[in-house]
């Protein structure tokens, strides 16, 4: 039997949701106009006032926000509430230049946790469950979001955070966890470790909620088979709150967007034009309930399709497909956002040419990141020790910038493949 956390909203009629969206959007635009000079200026540049937005039908008139805006406005430029009303920040992976800091009031956290509670409930979670959260806790939204959602559902919550596989498995066995929340690649790794240690008969998992990185249907089937669970996808981004913006139901054919909190649009990434329902394009979110950090028409850069086809789970919320790609050059490696420009900045700072190649692969269900760097006459030395030292300091600088380990491979000059004279910067070998 399908379970709902807030059935009156998750299964509301289209008219009810639309009425709610209209009312909340109008209020939100006014709130932003009054409190966020940065966005107000953007509206004024388009000759708009809040009166121009009377309903969702007027949404397309509003200017977009992009990651660049978030960077320009860092840290307080998009804040819509006095700091005394804010209780938390979360941030995207520790990267200079592209850092995003999102603010939350207690009310914002409450609604975010509701969204995560919906996801856990849709995965079959109840107050009888033991929910093991192995997303990172801290600035990353994964841990705090699912942790809060799990509390709301009433699960016994294990705030494990990421890593320390031995301890994860010990708790999983000793406390008989029934729901696992982590990245799909870590789930695959845990599944493998469980088999290696012959623990399969000692675990009681029934469901997994896996997000923060792309994964294939094949990977889903693998994890489901190995752990004897049903695996659910979850979507979100720090900019809009965190995980729980959209979540999968028992039908597993896409993720329901929590439309009472977020209005989703699909646009042509080149023209910015809104595309008709069912088109493939860039996903744009407007958060209509957030108080502290309300983003209007935020371009996610994720390419996907929305569908309103009737879902067997009974929810009426629109469904988004798994993201099929990006409209920018951002890579998601091990759940962390990686921009080639960040790698380039590190290379230049360390005295290398901006001649590099990024190779991303997935080996044993875990992402790998290799950076090929061309040796330069200036950096070359007769001493292997000196070259190794330089390589080490480059690896450390990349780790500091990206937050994840990248393997550096020094190559001979002019060996990085060039097509039409331009170097091929990114090779993504992952089959997702």
């Amino acid at each position, binding site marked *: 039997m399908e379970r709902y956390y807030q059935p009156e909203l998750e299964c509301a009629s289209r008219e009810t949701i639309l009425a709610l969206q209209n009312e909340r959007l109008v209020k939100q635009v006014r709130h932003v106009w009054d409190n966020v000079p940065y966005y107000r200026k953007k509206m004024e540049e388009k000759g708009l006032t809040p009166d121009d937005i009377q309903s969702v039908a007027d949404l397309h008139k509003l200017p977009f926000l992009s990651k660049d805006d978030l960077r320009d406005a860092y840290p307080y430029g998009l804040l819509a509430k006095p700091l005394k009303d804010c209780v938390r920040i979360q941030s995207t992976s520790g990267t200079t230049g592209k850092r995003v800091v999102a603010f939350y009031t207690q009310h914002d956290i409450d609604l975010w946790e509701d969204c995560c509670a919906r996801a856990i409930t849709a995965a079959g979670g109840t107050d009888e469950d033991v929910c093991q959260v192995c997303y990172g806790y801290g600035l990353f939204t994964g841990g705090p979001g699912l942790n809060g959602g799990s509390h709301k559902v009433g699960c016994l919550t294990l705030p494990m955070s990421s890593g320390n596989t031995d301890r994860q498995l010990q708790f999983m066995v000793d406390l008989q966890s029934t729901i696992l929340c982590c990245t799909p690649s870590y789930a695959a790794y845990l599944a493998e470790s469980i088999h290696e240690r012959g623990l399969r008969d000692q675990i009681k998992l029934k469901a997994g909620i896996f997000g923060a990185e792309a994964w294939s249907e094949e990977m889903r089937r693998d994890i489901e088979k190995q752990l004897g669970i049903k695996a659910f996808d979850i979507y979100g981004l720090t900019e809009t709150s965190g995980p729980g913006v959209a979540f999968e139901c028992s039908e597993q054919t896409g993720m329901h967007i929590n439309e009472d909190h977020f209005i989703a649009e699909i646009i042509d990434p080149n023209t910015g034009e809104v595309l008709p329902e069912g088109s493939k394009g860039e996903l744009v979110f407007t958060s209509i309930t957030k108080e502290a950090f309300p983003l209007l028409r935020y371009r996610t850069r994720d390419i996907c399709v929305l569908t309103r086809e009737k879902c067997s789970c009974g929810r009426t919320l629109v469904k988004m497909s798994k993201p099929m790609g990006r409209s920018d050059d951002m890579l998601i490696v091990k759940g962390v956002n990686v921009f080639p420009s960040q790698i380039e900045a590190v290379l230049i700072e360390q005295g290398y040419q901006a001649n590099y190649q990024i190779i991303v692969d997935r080996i044993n269900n875990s992402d790998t990141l290799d950076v090929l760097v061309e040796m330069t*006459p200036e950096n070359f030395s007769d001493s292997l020790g000196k070259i190794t030292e330089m390589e080490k300091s480059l690896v450390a600088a990349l780790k500091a910038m990206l937050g994840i380990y990248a393997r550096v491979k020094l190559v001979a000059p002019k060996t990085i493949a060039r097509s039409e004279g331009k170097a091929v910067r990114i090779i993504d070998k992952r089959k997702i």
Partner: protein
Amino acid sequence: MSIHQISVFLENRVGQLAQITKILADHHIDLRALSIAETTDYGILRVIVDETVKATDILLEQGFILSKTPVLVISVPDAPGGLAQVLALLAEGQLDIEYMYSLFTNQNGNAYMVFRVSDEAKFTALLQSHNIPIATNEELGIH
């Protein structure tokens, strides 16, 4: 003038070394010594050739990354214990060896060893005080 070694950056890739030796062969450059220091991904090829300037120019032209390093070449008796006495000297003088390798050349019952050490001046003085000869370009037929 001291003897110079050419150090070339090598990517660990099939055919890299063959390519370099072919280039040298095509230009009639003779190798006096060769050694490779490597990690899993890359290495440094160190060579001493008969025509250092010519070889350097050609390799640079072909896009290789290289450096020229002065090294000490010492002639030791090609007999048991020949090398041992030099190494004992280095140990006594508390000198570190960064690397060493041997030349193909063997003349008048002497073998030749290339040394790169932490303190070259000190090493030179030690060698001189023990009458151990330092090889010259002329002796090895290097132009």
